[in-house]
């Protein structure tokens, strides 16, 4: 019997300890029960950067990710440091053309630019995924 695929979020926390150690390694194994991940969202997490003007987009750092055990390199993106109260739009995930498979590794790095309001902080990578079964149901 075919089961409807359930949507689920995976969260990868990335702890940045101080601006001098400015490159933080990332390694995370997608759980086996995940079918595919087709969206990614980056959050500054527990920190932010003060906006200097209305049109200023503060940038926390640069993230670079390899997917499917380093077979592809689809994400090289700036992480914004906008405080949630300054958010003007809606948080939505970026579509991934290269979908992630369950059981594979995501590897990469977070390069911090030394401008966060506080250290250490924990930024988060959100992956929008579907599960192989209705494992969410209890």
């Amino acid at each position, binding site marked *: 019997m075919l089961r409807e695929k359930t949507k689920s979020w995976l*969260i990868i926390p990335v702890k940045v300890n101080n601006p001098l150690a400015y490159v933080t390694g990332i390694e995370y194994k997608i759980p086996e029960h995940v079918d595919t991940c087709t969206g990614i969202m980056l*959050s500054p*997490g527990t920190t932010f950067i003060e906006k200097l003007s209305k049109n200023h987009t503060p940038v926390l750092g640069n993230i670079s990710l390899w997917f499917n055990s380093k077979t592809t390199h689809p994400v090289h993106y700036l992480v914004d440091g906008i405080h949630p*109260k300054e958010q003007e739009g809606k948080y939505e995930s970026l579509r991934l053309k290269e979908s992630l498979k369950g059981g594979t590794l995501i590897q990469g790095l977070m390069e911090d630019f030394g401008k966060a309001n506080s250290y250490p902080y924990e930024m988060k990578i959100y992956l929008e995924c579907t599960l192989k079964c209705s494992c*969410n149901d209890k």
Partner: protein
Amino acid sequence: MKTIKYQLLKLLIPTSGADVQAEINTEKGYALVTGISANATDEEASLGCVFNKFEINNKEIFPEGYESSRITTGINVSPNDRFYKVTEPADGTKVTVKYKDGGNALAYPYILTIYLNLENA
């Protein structure tokens, strides 16, 4: 004819770093929960706050550690686009929320309001 109702779940956050849990049942007479949104009375509060549980009808909607700010929107968003889209059964199902404050509010207590968009197809 489609009917829509907005149901509110209010959580009082008493102190910095507090863990707060609440449960409600969705309104009877509405078939689906089609959207979720959140707003806090303290604008600084949203930094670092997470849901440690958010379930509808015993199904996980957001995992542990999902920032509550991710389902808030800015003022530039059209009102009908302000909800995080879901399609989950309503009509009396249980909604369970566990929320952990990030310790950044200007003052305590403050109130977090979760909005559920209920619809009949």
